[in-house]
């Protein structure tokens, strides 16, 4: 039993990332009818927002410290981050320590700008083109974005730690009545999961309870009719694209302590997120979220040594295998809407 709970917990953080990316993909597909192969790159850019903020906050200049000397007896030159000088060393240290959560604020405007630029500059021209063209041009864009990041940040993963307060694990087992130390769960992963739930809830609430959201949902169901009502759907869809970009970016920001970002992390997540979307059902938001968590947990179970002993390599292929089976038996996916991409 404790082993099962542990595997579920382990699957949650990856599942959260899948769910957030898949949510954005589905929003874009449902509203704009565009298959966005560059969505993984947005996730990756989000992660690099965190890296960038961390570097910006750590910007420092050299100061001669008269109180200390090096081994030759000269005064020592030390690097002092500017934030230490502005806010004092203690607050400054805390700010740098908390750079990943702070990067959320930093990433939101950036991701919205990138999202708007992408939609207005490129995607807009591909609404009427075949899906194959959309896949191809966004695939090209993904390559360009990741190469730009590579040019600036290099090819190696850049470790970006979580705040000190969240380092380590807590004893989840003891909390719910199991033996102590049986179910240990890292704090940051719990933070990530909660964060994902909040974002998902916010997106759903936004779509459900605001007029804006209602129009968008109506547009997803029947674009032409809503257009006939004299509502400018395109403008709202542009904003939805920016929101989707933002969701992917924030998913990336918070994922950095779990996986050190490198330039091609986006592509790896994109492939899996597409599989998630297909399993969940193209065009279904709840489907995307449910399938994201489901596949994350499934992957975690398949990674158990006992399972691998029985079916070697299953952890590597489980997600694809599930996708193939689902596509062949339930072509619409688990919660897919009727009439979406059935041709």
């Amino acid at each position, binding site marked *: 039993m404790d082993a099962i709970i542990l595997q579920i917990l382990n699957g949650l953080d990856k599942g959260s990332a899948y769910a957030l990316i898949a949510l954005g993909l589905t929003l874009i597909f449902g509203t704009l009818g565009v298959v966005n192969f560059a969505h993984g790159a947005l996730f990756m850019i989000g992660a690099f927002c965190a890296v960038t903020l961390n570097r910006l906050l750590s910007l420092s200049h050299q100061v001669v410290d008269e109180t200390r000397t090096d081994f030759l007896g000269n005064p020592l030159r030390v690097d002092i981050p500017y934030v230490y000088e502005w806010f004092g060393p203690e607050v400054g240290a805390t700010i740098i320590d908390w750079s990943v959560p702070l990067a959320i604020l930093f990433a939101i405007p950036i991701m919205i700008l990138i999202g708007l630029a992408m939609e207005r500059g490129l995607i807009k021209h591909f609404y009427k083109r075949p899906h194959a063209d959309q896949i191809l041009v966004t*695939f*090209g864009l993904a*390559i360009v974005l990741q190469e730009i990041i590579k040019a600036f940040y290099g090819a190696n993963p850049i470790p970006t730690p979580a705040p000190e307060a969240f380092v380590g694990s807590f004893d989840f087992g003891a909390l719910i009545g199991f033996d102590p130390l049986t179910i240990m769960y890292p704090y940051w992963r719990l933070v990530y999961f909660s964060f994902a739930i909040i974002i998902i809830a916010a997106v759903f609430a936004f779509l459900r309870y605001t007029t804006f959201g209602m129009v968008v949902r109506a547009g997803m169901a029947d674009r032409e009719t809503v257009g006939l009502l004299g509502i400018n759907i395109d403008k709202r869809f542009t904003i939805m694209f920016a929101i989707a970009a933002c969701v992917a970016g924030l998913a990336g920001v918070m994922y950095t302590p779990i996986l050190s970002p490198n330039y091609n992390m986006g592509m790896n997540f994109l492939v899996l997120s*597409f*599989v998630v979307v297909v399993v969940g059902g193209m065009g279904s938001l709840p489907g995307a979220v449910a399938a994201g968590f489901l596949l994350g947990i499934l992957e975690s179970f398949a990674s158990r040594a006992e399972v691998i002993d029985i079916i070697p390599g299953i952890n*590597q292929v489980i997600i694809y295998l599930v996708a*193939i089976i689902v596509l062949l038996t339930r*072509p619409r996916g688990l919660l897919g809407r009727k009439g979406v991409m059935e041709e």
Partner: protein
Amino acid sequence: MLGLNRKDSGLFLLVICLTALAPFLLNPFPEGSELAQFNAGYPDLMQRFMIFGIFAIGFNILFGLTGYLSFGHAAFLGVGSYAGVWMMKLLTVNVVPAIIMSVIVAGLFSLIVGFISLRRSGIYFSILTLAFAQMSFALAYSVLTPITNGETGLQLSLNDPRILGISQTVDGSIPAANFFGIEMRDSLELAMGGWLFTFNAGYYLAAIVMLISFYIAIRIFRSPFGMMLRAVKSNQQRMSYTGLNTRPYALTAFVISGMYAGLAGGLMVAMDPLAGAERMYWTASGEVVLMTILGGAGTLLGPIIGASAIKYFENIFSKINDTVLHGWFSFMPDGLQDFVVAIIHPFIGKGWHLTLGLMFMLVVIFLPGGLMEGINRLRIWFGKRINGRQQTPDHAPATSS
């Protein structure tokens, strides 16, 4: 000629001449000159032109004709490579059985993948093929290590049985891949003035195989079968109400393109007997998509042009570095020179993928028909200008060129 109409015969002859004379044509700059780095006439790169040309020709039979966008074709190339290396380990280092086996194994594998994937179309098909390729990649790295040798990659060793050949040569080394005694790495070098031309046995074998593949592709394009494949792309609905079963047509195209991929994999092994799982990674599948689109999907010549262009840029662009750039712009004042080099820097050397991505986007946006469409547009444009000049005096209506 050979059952082709005049236009196709001309095209085929042109390709034959270009490939036969490639060692000359691709080495236009004298050795040791500033521009020698733009020469592409060395065996390794020329072999790649041919091998990836075959890969793209095959992919085009599927994507260009039927419109099914597969994102997993590298898996067939990878499987073909493994099969080829195994033949060279078990049977003989003669490349013929290796190449044949690569085609057969890739064909069988694509039959299975295609049979399942073609039950869906559109983006679902793309994702199914992607899923299969990623699965093959993951399995080749992990469970199938006894067959694939995992991360190290599969290569020949001194202990291989090679029942029809020899395990090792007299001097105790691994025998070299050959075609009935002609070693693939054998080259004939010809120095003429400042120029050096290399005629490599492996290249010419690859070239002959490519020409045969190209010829078969032309026949398929012009056949009723090819017409049916274009009909699949155009309107599947109408096809089935016309009494045609679309799925076997698409599946045959899928298997043919899978066999072409296997052939490319087999040739890769023939030139350099090793196979690794990274050949199956989905970016490798993306690469053949890029080649086909860049050259012009659905055209005969496009895939070869696309494959050569991408392989050329990959090799040449990635060799240009800042020192080279400074050399080029040395005529400029220092400040400006540094500035220009700094601007170009991200696009060259290791950044050549950025150039590739941009090129690809530009092509999809402005030239959906690829470079072939660009060439045609230019031809029409020039044609109009020339015709226009001739015809202005008597105001004759433009005739079709």
